């Protein structure tokens, strides 16, 4: 019988390995989901079919339309969308500054819609929020501002002061305790707001366009402070923004909101390298005119998108060497997203048709993602 069993044995082994392979791929794809399930952790926020409808005189606006998503403890979760996409309304349903029209928001196992206003106030103390306009009290000193949430919660005065000074130290403003908000720069004011938000030791920090009023350099500083706090205090952070750069810099996962609906959700790396929906593509790949090509020609142009794999290889140099055809780089934009090189380039092709074909053939062989760009788009700079 031995000579019959042997091939079956082989078949069995390969079946198992194929099965294991599929399983592994699946696990890898839903890695985070498995990690959280395995570790027994549950989502900090669970949104179930959340909708918010605003009624105006003669129409209704679906600001949030049937959104379901989970936000896990200790992650930095981004919610991105164009202005008017409903993201600010969405974040306000997280601490019930907005009541949902239908669906449920579950925070830390509790359905927010079921809480009495007193219970809700108690919950809100563990959900801090910072804003685009900082919203500091102008008639109170920096220290008094940071003490305020503790004052409301009737923390003993001495403890309030100690904790407030400690939090000001975390945000690097311990020497500004006696200053008035009006004497501070925008970045410093947002730092005070962060200190104030951290004062009650919250479980989550909700950031509503927190860096939108700040210049790029200050934005960077605030973002690295948030990342730092996330690491050190294990604090969950939810960031609402319309700027992709904010998401790519610090978020672990991101949800793309378009016209009130959840267009796409996943790890930042996934979404950046292969945006599937139009809304995601629109946010991630800037329009041709935003790329600002410095030279405008009548020749054909293509846009090459790097998704990390090719970034290490000098594609253009190799192309020129292999085909002998010269291409002209009109503009390029690359960045590192979660440690992966990501970017795009607009390249002007040679004038002769057969040369163009050779170049495209080479790029196709390399398996690089590209598409032709309409010259009108480029011209409309």
């Amino acid at each position, binding site marked *: 019988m031995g000579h019959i069993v042997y091939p079956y044995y082989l078949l069995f082994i390969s079946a198992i390995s194929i099965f294991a392979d599929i399983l592994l791929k699946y696990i890898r794809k839903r890695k985070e989901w498995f990690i959280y399930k395995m570790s027994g952790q549950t989502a900090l926020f669970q949104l179930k079919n959340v909708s918010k409808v605003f009624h105006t005189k003669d129409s209704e606006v679906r600001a949030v339309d049937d959104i379901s998503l989970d936000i896990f403890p200790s992650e930095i979760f981004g919610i991105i969308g164009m202005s008017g996409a409903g993201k600010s309304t969405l974040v306000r349903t997280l601490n019930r500054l907005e009541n949902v029209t239908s669906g449920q928001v579950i925070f830390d196992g509790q359905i927010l819609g079921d809480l009495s206003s007193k219970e809700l106030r108690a*919950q809100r103390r563990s959900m801090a929020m910072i804003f685009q306009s900082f919203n500091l009290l102008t*008639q109170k000193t920096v220290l008094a501002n940071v003490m305020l949430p503790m004052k*409301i919660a009737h923390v003993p005065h001495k403890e309030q002061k100690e904790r407030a000074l400690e939090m000001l130290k975390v945000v690097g403003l311990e020497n500004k305790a006696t200053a008035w908000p009006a004497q501070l720069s925008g970045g410093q004011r947002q730092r005070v707001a962060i200190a104030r938000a951290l004062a009650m030791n919250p479980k989550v920090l909700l950031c509503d366009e927190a860096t939108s009023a700040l210049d790029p350099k200050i934005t960077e500083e605030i973002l690295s402070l948030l990342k730092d706090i996330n690491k050190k205090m294990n604090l969950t952070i939810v960031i609402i923004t319309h700027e992709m750069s904010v998401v790519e810099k610090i978020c672990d996962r991101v949800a793309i909101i378009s016209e009130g609906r959840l267009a796409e959700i996943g790890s930042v790396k996934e979404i950046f390298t292969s945006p599937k929906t139009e809304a995601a593509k629109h946010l991630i790949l800037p329009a041709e005119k935003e790329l600002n090509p410095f030279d405008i020609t009548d020749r054909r142009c293509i846009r090459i998108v790097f998704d990390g794999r090719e970034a290490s290889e000098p594609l253009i140099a190799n192309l020129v060497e292999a085909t002998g055809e010269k291409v002209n780089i009109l503009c390029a934009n690359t960045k590192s997203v979660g440690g992966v090189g990501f970017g795009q380039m607009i390249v002007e092709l040679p004038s002769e048709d057969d040369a163009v074909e050779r170049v495209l053939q080479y790029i196709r062989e390399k398996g690089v993602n590209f598409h032709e760009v309409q010259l009108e788009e480029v011209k409309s700079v």
Partner: protein
Amino acid sequence: MSEAIWKMIRSGVLETLQMTVISTALAYLIGLPLGILLVVTEKGHILQNRIINTILGTIMNIVRSVPFLILLVVLVPFTRFVTGSSIGTTATIVPLTVGTIPIVARMVESSLKEVSPGIIEAAESMGASPASIIFRFILPEATPSLILGGAINLATVLGYSAMAGCIGGGGIGAIALNYGWYRYQTDVLLVTVVILILIVQIFQEVGTILAAKKRHS
């Protein structure tokens, strides 16, 4: 002008100040909470309540639209009921207070509305109760503006107190009327007017200085 008239003017000034300050203080005692109520019961605010807001707003407008001189006369029975008399300094305090309450309430309302809605949203996100939001957020933020409003109200009440002279109220207004107008003593009239101007100036200046000292934005 004789020594007697100067003496009378001196006590008149004191009476006027007494009427003005006491009436304004009493008007704030009632008008400030009403002003707060007008703001927080508004649509979309922390204690939204259309019924209270509409009733309160209407009463304020009715009282405010009655000319003060008419209000003085209309309130005579009420004044007599409260103070036992309808003439003199103490009696004048009653109509002055009643007439000033709606002015104070509206002034407070407009000061509180200057507070950025973002501050109230921040307060709510911290888990502040409506009382905390009013006393720890809205009122402190509105303090400089409330002080300026207070100075304006003092000047208004001062003007009203002079009117009270017509129906037997005391104070410098009565002196101006009785001596300056009925007896053609132009010098008395001039002196009282100058004194009234000075008092208003002082109220306004002190208010402005206090508000500026308090303001940090």
